[in-house]
Every structure is written in C-alpha cells, then in structure tokens.
C-alpha cells in the first residue's frame, strides 16, 4: 500500500465524507450516478491511507436500494402499512401519552445506537431527558465499548479508545492484540500493523486462527490460541512473566502508577504453567510475547497492546481489560511516546456515541449524571433547573428486559439499532419488544426490529446527512451530505423537534440544524472529560486535525493523552485487578462445547445493511458455524451439512464449516444473520458488574444435526 506520503493531507477536504460502517471511518467521496447507485471513491486519510474494504467499496449500494424505506409505516390490522408523516407522528404521540399516563415519565424508554452522529446522539439524550422527562435511555454501545470504557475510566480516569493517533502504531515493532480481528472487522487498519507484522512482532490472542492471527504467523509472529473466556488469566499470566523475567519498568511504576503491589498479589498466583493450563496457551508462547513487547519497548521501536470485543464482551469484561491495562502498566507503555494501550472501537461513532449523553448514566461531555456539578453545568446549557434532569436509567439489556413488564415502560423509541439480532438472548428481547404498546423504530430499511414496530419512521443515511463523528482515535470528523435523501425520509433532528412540538414540550430546545446542535453540544461538553468546546464545524471544514479534549485549555486538541499525567485525581494510573472469575456458564455433559461469536469481513453488526448489498450477501449469504472436523464428526456432521447449535436459551441453525485450525472445544458463530440464524439466540445475558456488558463471547452449547 501507499506509505505515508510526505506532506500528505491529514486534512478533511470538502467533499470528503467517511464510510458508514466501522470506527476506522475511512475517508471516501460519494458521487451520485444515474440509475440510483452512488459511486464510492476512496480518499487518502491517515486512518485508511486510501484503502477501503469491500463493505466500504459497496456502501453506496444501499443509497438507492429497493428495500429503502421512503414512507412511514404504521401497523394496522397486524400489518405495517404506508402512511403519511402526520399520521405516523400522531400515532407516536398517542403512544407516548398513553404510556406516560399509565406509567409516568418513565413509561417511555429510548434506545439509541453507536451509529448516530454526535449531534444526534446528543440530541437524543436531551430529548429523552427533557421532552420525554424519562430517565430510561441507553444504547447498543453498551454491548460494544462499555467494558473497555469502564476499565479505562478506572485505571486512567478517562476513556478514549486510542489515546494516541492510529498512525502511531505504524512504526511499532511489537503489537499485542487481545480479542481483536481487524483483518475482518476494519481491514485498512492492518496497514498500521505492517511494521510489527513484518518484524515478527505481531501477537494475536484469539481462540481462533483468525485472519489477523494468520497474518501474525505469516510474518513470524505469535498466535495465542486461548480457550474462550480465559482472557483475564492470559493477561495476568503475561503480567506475571513481565515481573519474573525482569521486564517490569520499575521507574515508571514508581513515578506514574499506584497499586502495583496489590496487582502483584493477584498476578503472583498466575504462574506460567497455571496460565498455560487454564488458557491452553503454551508457556513458550507467553514468554515470546512478553519478550517481543519488552524488546521493542527497550529498543524504542514501538510497543503497543490493544484490546477489542473478544476481551471485552464478557460478564467480567471490565476486569479483563483491567488486567490487560495492568500488563501494559507493568511494561510502562501507557502515556508515553511510541508505546501505549488502547481499545479498537467498533461502531462508526462508538466513541462519540458514548460521550454525549445517550448512556443511561451520563450527560454530555462524558459527565456522570449523578454528579451534581455535571447536572448544574448541563442544566445551564439546556436552560432548565438541575432537578428537571432525571437520574440514571437502566443499562441496555436491563432496559430491554423491563419492557412491558409490570412497572416497566410500555412505549419505546428506537434509533440506529437492531436488538432483535444484536441483543444477547435475542428471543427474550424480541418477546419484550412485542409486549410493548408502542414500539417506534427509525431506520432506513425494515430491519428485523423495525418489522416488530408499531410505527416505522424512514430516516436518511450517512451520505445524505451532515454532522460529525468521533473515530477510534478520538478525532472529530465531518460527515457530509453528497446525496439528496429520498423525499419521504425525514432527519431524526426534525423528528424529535416535531415530536416535542406535538407533545408541547419545548420544540425550540430541539433545533433541526445539525450545526446548531453541535455548537450546543460543544458548550454542554465544556469542562467535561470529553471536551469539544473549542471544536467547530469551520475548523473541521478547514481541515484541522482535532482530537478531544479540545477546549479552553487545549484549543489545538490532544492527539496524545496522558503524556504528563493521567486523568486520575493524583495523576497516576491505577492498577485495577480483580480475581478472574469462573466461567459465566460452565460446560457440562449436555452442553459440552463453548460457542464464541464474532464478525465477518463482508458484514457489519446486525447485517441489516450489509445483508442487503448484493456483493456482500453473495460473499456470505447464510449463517454458518466454524468447527473442528472431529467435533463435527462426533455430531454426525460433515463440511457443508445443516447443523443446529443449542444453548440453554435457544438454538441456531447453521451450515457446518469444518476448519482444522479450530480448538476442539470451541465453535465460532458470526452474529450478522437473522431469523433462525441469529447467533444471539444462544448468548448469555449475564452482565458485568461495572459496565453492564453481557457475556457475548462465551456460552455453553452442543452441536447436533439439524432435524
């Protein structure tokens, strides 16, 4: 690929927008073509360096797609039928009034998504708290970044996915990825791992020989093929080795951290042989991993540790990330040039989406809703009394699980999410959604969740809207309109304004101009952890590179965090380690295998978008289960056979894909498919005590032939 071009533009050029999918936010331009299909052209940008994966290349196919919703739908006689906007919004308002008459303000709940722009994420939180007066809002990012966020907040006092620009990774000779498969999930990112891969310094911890792990091996690097759910043990075992091999950075520990001794009290018990026994990763490989990281660090050649959902989506995900951060701290990586720890954000606006108030417990600027000062500040920006802002609500799964229950909400507005496919124990969640009196879904295609709705509101897509997103490195990006949305679609900002007007709850508080919303967001975030107050659209449009915090104290933005101090009260990073817990769901004779789930290159999240793109659907048309051939054979199955995977919660139908490189205790299921192929019919809604992340990544299952 093209290396960093000298003098290459880091800039946001007018006309650029960014891919609708993952948090890498590859730059592209979109040009309308005759016949309704927009043409996508990759643009050079630091994150993607001109690259796009096939999701990005084909992103334009959805713009003029025949499945595109171009008129509101309303359920009549049990069927969704087209209607006009007045009718649809009246039905929504009726539903809200009915729910709140019966259940008070919290009779209505709101569910958001990490795909919303910063402006919409902000406005949705404000709309919920002020127009609806409800405390019940959460979003699908709870199932994405929440464990990494909780752990980073605990250890660093601040959560920004990558606390350094992604390009810092490019020269690094050693990179350890734990539960990350960017070769499938954000392919152009792999360009930044090129140096490490070529140096044999790419280390990938994954139960599968993923495409990323294969890349590591091809370059002479290391694949740590751990048993699913043993990530914390792996991290503590590596930490143990860092200490006993003398790779610990004692000066850094003394100057920049607290709590090492307590961390060591845990890690001391993770003798290499015990770690090997629990994780299945050989001591020799653990030692190699530690040596690679320490040697690259000592040589000043770049040494990084990154986590992603494989490590984080567990009922102890916060502890897992805490252990990984402890490993990074023992090596002295965070908060220094050329070394670091970070997490790879998932959704397109997974970073910005969690900063501006669509989390149950947060207000804009990454402020805690329970913090009196935060409430006072935001109330002043909103021109209300602090008491008018409701308190914390319920986390995503708990919220969905309460729908239609006694005392629970009876109406829900749902945006940019598809929990019928993406929620853990998905059938249980679908049942709760069906129990609602009024389910309102805003989307641009009829997702599996929209299909259950009472009202469906068609909204614009990425290339049809203006706004900002914040990418995986905390850089604020402009999303620009290149295409005119279909006549029947209405922007979410307009919808919320219109609902506030019809409810007579201060429509003037909900402007429809995204730029005005951003300016208010910037003020609301001023002085908060995620401070955007010195960012404005003019600066972004002029091509400035602005990483938050970017406020009064840091008007030029902050590409690299923590170089002088961490964001904790004493400025030191904290070792936060809990004892690894036993598996959330142990295997037994009836459910002897471990299922783990993940993403495919051809699809994005619940697949509502990518399953509709011809090229992507052709590449991965149906649900499959990856399994070692001896495990398939024991179930009477061969490659290509129709199988059923059964957990204590449900069963999934999938085609068998035999793979000699699989562990013989593990099945892998992609989670992008619908209907009987939903991997989340199996998953376990056991929640992390800190982040409320469900246990997506491991559950006990059995494999059998489909009837």
């Amino acid at each position: 690929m093209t290396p960093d071009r000298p003098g290459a533009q880091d800039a946001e050029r007018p006309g650029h927008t960014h891919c609708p999918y993952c948090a890498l936010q590859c730059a592209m331009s979109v040009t309308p073509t005759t016949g309704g299909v927009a043409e996508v052209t990759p643009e050079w940008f630091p994150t993607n360096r001109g690259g796009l994966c096939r999701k990005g290349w084909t992103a334009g196919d959805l713009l003029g797609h025949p499945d595109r919703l171009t008129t509101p739908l309303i359920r009549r006689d049990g069927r969704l039928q087209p209607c006009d906007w007045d009718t649809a919004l009246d039905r929504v308002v009726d539903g809200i009034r009915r729910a709140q008459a019966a259940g008070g303000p919290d009779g209505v709940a709101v569910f958001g998504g990490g795909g919303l722009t910063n402006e919409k994420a902000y406005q949705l939180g404000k709309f919920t708290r002020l127009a609806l007066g409800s405390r019940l809002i959460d979003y699908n990012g709870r199932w994405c970044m929440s464990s990494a966020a909780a752990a980073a907040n605990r250890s660093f006092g601040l959560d920004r996915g990558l606390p350094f620009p992604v390009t810092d990774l490019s020269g690094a000779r050693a990179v350890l990825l734990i539960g990350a498969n960017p070769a499938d999930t954000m392919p152009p990112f792999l360009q930044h791992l090129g140096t490490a891969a070529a140096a044999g310094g790419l280390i990938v911890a994954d139960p599968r020989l993923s495409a990323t792990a294969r890349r590591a091996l091809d370059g002479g690097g290391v694949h740590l093929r751990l048993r699913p759910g043993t990530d914390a043990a792996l991290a503590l075992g590596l930490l143990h080795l860092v200490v006993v091999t003398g790779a610990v950075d004692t000066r850094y520990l003394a100057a920049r951290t607290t709590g090492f001794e307590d961390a060591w009290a845990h890690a001391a018990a993770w003798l290499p042989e015990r770690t090997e026994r629990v994780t299945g990763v050989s001591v020799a490989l653990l030692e190699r991993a530690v040596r690679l990281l320490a040697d690259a660090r000592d040589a000043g050649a770049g040494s990084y540790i990154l986590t992603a959902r494989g490590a984080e989506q567990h009922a102890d995900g916060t502890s897992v990330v805490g252990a990984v951060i402890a490993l990074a701290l023992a090596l002295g990586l965070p908060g220094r040039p050329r070394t670091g720890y970070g997490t790879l954000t998932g959704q397109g606006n997974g970073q910005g989406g969690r900063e501006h108030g669509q989390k149950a417990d947060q207000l804009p600027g990454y402020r805690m809703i329970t913090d009196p000062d935060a409430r006072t500040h935001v109330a002043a920006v909103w021109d209300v009394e602090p008491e008018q802002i409701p308190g914390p609500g319920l986390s995503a799964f708990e919220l969905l699980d309460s729908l239609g229950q006694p005392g629970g909400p009876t109406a829900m507005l749902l945006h940019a999410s598809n929990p019928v496919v993406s929620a853990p124990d998905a059938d249980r969640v679908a049942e709760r959604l069906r129990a609602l009196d009024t389910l309102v879904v805003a989307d641009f295609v009829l997702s599996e969740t929209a299909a259950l709705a009472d009202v469906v509101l068609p909204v614009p897509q990425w290339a049809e809207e203006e706004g900002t997103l914040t990418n995986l490195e905390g850089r604020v990006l402009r999303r620009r309109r290149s295409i005119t949305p279909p006549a029947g679609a209405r922007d979410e900002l307009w919808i919320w304004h219109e609902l506030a007007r019809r409810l007579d709850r201060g429509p003037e508080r909900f402007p429809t101009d995204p730029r005005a919303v951003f300016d208010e967001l910037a003020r609301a975030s001023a002085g908060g952890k995620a401070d955007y107050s010195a960012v404005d659209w003019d600066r972004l449009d002029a091509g400035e590179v602005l990483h938050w915090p970017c406020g009064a104290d840091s008007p030029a933005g902050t590409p690299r965090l923590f170089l002088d101090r961490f964001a904790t009260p004493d400025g030191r990073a904290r070792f936060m380690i809990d004892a690894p817990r036993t598996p959330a769901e142990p295997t037994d004779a009836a459910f002897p295998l471990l299922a783990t789930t993940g993403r495919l290159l051809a699809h994005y999240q619940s697949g509502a978008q990518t399953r509709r793109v011809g090229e992507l659907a052709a590449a991965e048309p149906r649900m499959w289960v990856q399994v070692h051939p001896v495990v398939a054979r024991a179930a009477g199955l061969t490659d290509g056979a129709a199988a059923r995977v059964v957990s204590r919660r449900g069963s999934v139908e999938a085609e068998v894909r035999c793979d000699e490189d699989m562990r013989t205790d593990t099945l892998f299921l992609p989670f992008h498919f619908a209907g009987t192929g939903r991997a989340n019919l199996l998953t376990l809604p056991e929640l992390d005590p800190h982040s409320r992340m469900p246990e997506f990544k491991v559950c006990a299952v059995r494999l059998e032939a489909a009837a």
Partner: protein
Amino acid sequence: MSAAVVRQAPRRVVIVGAGMAAARLAEELRAGEPDPARLSVTVLGAEAEEPYNRIMLSHAAAASGAAGAPGAAGGATPVARLKPAGWWDRHDITLRTSAPVAALDRVTCEVELAGGERVGYDHLVLATGAAPRIPPVDGIRSPGGGLAPGVFTLRDAAGQRELTAHLAAHPGPVAIVGAGFIGLEVACALAAAGHDVVVVHPRAWPMNGCLDAGAGAVLVRSLAALGVRTVTGARATSWDGATLRLDDGEVRCRTVVLTAGSAPRADLARDAGLEVGHGVVVDDELTTSDPAISAIGDCAQHRGVVSGLVAPAWDQAVVLAARLSGADPDARYSGGTPVTRLKAHGLDVVALGEFAEDVYGSAGGDDEATEVTTLCEPARGRYARVDVVAGRVVGAALIGHPEPVGVLTQLYENALPVPDDVVSVILGRAEAVAAQTPSTMPAAAVVCRCNGVSKGDLVAAWADGARDRDALAESTRAGTGCGGCSAAVEGICGWLAAAG
C-alpha cells in the same frame, strides 16, 4: 465428632504450614468470606519467610545470591514472595512465621506450637507439605542427625541459601542424586551458572516415572548439550566430603544435592491418630478421618495419590476454601491430572497422563482404539509421543516441543476430542502445511480477502490488459483494503509476465 459439627460453618480456620497450598487456601478463604468476624484465618508457618514461590528455588540456588536476581527466593525480593509486604494483615489473615506446630490436640481442638503455645480451631487444615527423601548413602548424615558437610536438599528457602553460600565458597563439581524433574532443573540451573554437574540416577533413564525409553535417550543427549552429564543405572553408596562413591564408579565433587524424591510430612497427623497411608488420607471433601481436620497439598493422599505438584494442591485449596467459607459447601475434589514439566533454559520436558501400553506389544498392538504417535529427532533434541485412546489423549511426553504443550494439556485435562492429524498438533499447522505459490494456487483461491478477489479474477483482469499492481487494483480492487496481499499480487503479476 459427629458429621453435624462440620456442617456448621467454622469460625476459626487454622492452617498448619505456609507453603503454596496454604497461602492459596488462606487467600481463597478470605475471598469467599471477607468478614473476619465470621471467619478467622490463621496460617502457622515453620519457616522464617512469608509464603514464597517454592518453584523458583532451583533457579535461585544457581543465581549465587546475585542481588536483584529475579528468581532469588527467601523473602528478600518481592518477586518470589507470593504476596507483597503487609498483604496478609490487610486481608485479615493471621500469618505467623517461625511457628512450627509440635502436636495436635483433637479433643480440645487446639494445636500446640513448639514453644508450648496452644491455638484453638474450629477447623484445622494440614498443609505441611513434603520432606526431602534422604537416600541411604554412607556418610551422608552428620553425627548430629543433619546432613553431612557438602550435602544439601532444596526443599525450602533456608536450604537454598545454604547451598548458594556453599557453592560460592566451593565452585567445584556438583553431584545431583536423583534425576526427577526437580533434580534435572537444579542440574540445568547449576550448569548454566557454570558449574560442572553430574546427575546420578538409579534407573535406566532420567524421569523414568513419566518418560518412556525413547524420551529418556533424547533427554540424556539434550542434558549433555547443556553441560549436564548423566550417570544412569547407578546408586550412590558413600560420601566422604570429596568423593561420592557409586556402586559402579565415583564422582569427585565438593557438593552433593539430594533430589531423590520427597515424602509427605504426616507425622503430626500420625501422632494424632489420623489415618495415614503414604500421606494424610483424605476423601473427596478433602477431609481426614477427623471431620474437623482437612489436608491439602503434598502432605495429602487423595484416592491413593500423593501428587507433589502445585497445580493439584491449588485445585484442592480452591475446593476446600469453597467448602469452609460456605461459598460452595458441596464442592468436591475428584482428583487431578498429573502434568509434570521440567523447565530449564534450552530444555523443555513435559509429561502428562500415562502411556497406553506399548503399542507394539500384546496389549496395544491389536487395539484399534489406541493410536500412538511418536516423533523422535535426537540430533535436534526433540521427542514427542502422544498416546490417544478412543479419541482422547491419555498420555504424552514432549521434549524440545514447547509450543504444543498448552494444547496437549487441555486436550488431556479436559478430555477434548483429538484432531486426527496429531503430527500437526505437535508441530503446528505452519510447519505442517506448505505455502502456496502463484502457480500451485487454485484459481478460486482468494488473494485479496478484503475485497474478495481470487487468483482467477486477477488472471482475468490481466488478460483484459491490467498488467501491473496498480492496474490490477484499479480493475479488481485487489490490495485496496489492508494491503496485506500486495506481495501476493506482485507475485502473480510476475508469474503471469513470465508465462507471457
């Protein structure tokens, strides 16, 4: 004592011993019941040190007391210590060092310390470990009953310090008596530190308890490469301070290290009338013949087995803590799965389970369910044997193959299905599968994963006039994602160009 007594959660648990099993038990007890008013935990250690990582003793011995050596034990470095200073106090665990227990009084439920002090318990746990076995060698004991000058064992930190000090004063040759895994670890560590080391072993090959003859032969060769000479089939008969005489020959040396096995420390239990076999007999609840007394670790005999390894000791500690803290009163220990390993710089030996009977012999040869895979490469110092019965690993030995150990351990311990291709389990797929070249690659093989471009797509684009990497990218998108296929695309370009 009636069974009803032990059903009540004990309020005072006293642990005799402060080794790795005891420390883990105390920690798990406190994790299970954080309130010291509901559960007090007292650890009585005979040694002067706080609990430390005993496994590091052999490395520490060879470190010759070098300051800051990571393996240095003896409580001096925080690394070898299992918990940092003050940890026990902070967790409301009473840790008493230099507090050897002289007797148990099961009637009053008290233990008596050597000084006469008595400590009461509601539940007592014996975690007294094992004592080194002293082989019958003339002159090996001093008249006082201790070991003769120049003779050492390596069971505790004090022994390690004495050995280290002696080696510093007498840097000459060292004889190691007994070639079990501990003996060999000591031998390798001392050899690596520059000592001339001879290992004397009475059996035909080292680690004969868990290796077969083929592995033994490779091991002897590997040891020689590390500077460790092995004398097998030989017994030490006498020691005079300068010469260790064998039944066939002699070794001139100033230092003898005894690593001829160990025996459970069961005297307290025996004297108190508990059932003792090789070790203190316990059931699946880890209870001795007295329901108010349990035993774990190297001193315990469970289902006839005394393990001597840390992993089963810790498993027992977890089970017993769950029972005593009330976290899981029904927890049971159903036995461990022995994994023995020797870890020295440049030498990895792992043995697990038990071999199926000799596959070439009468029992295994006709048995279709038994599959024995062996890879023997003496010159490379590598040997692997994996015995599979009915699709499960029953035993394995690996020398010089450190990378598959994790996989094999889990296949064995968790009784997981074994891949048909056992050789690839041992060697890894990377070695087992040959890389493809542009010409051997099938047309359908995907070259650019990010954009789903196959070799066939590239060949077709070439035929349509795309004759270099950029042109191929333009027409097929190959290489426009992660860029990882650039070399492969170049390779195909070159191959197509050469083919004309």
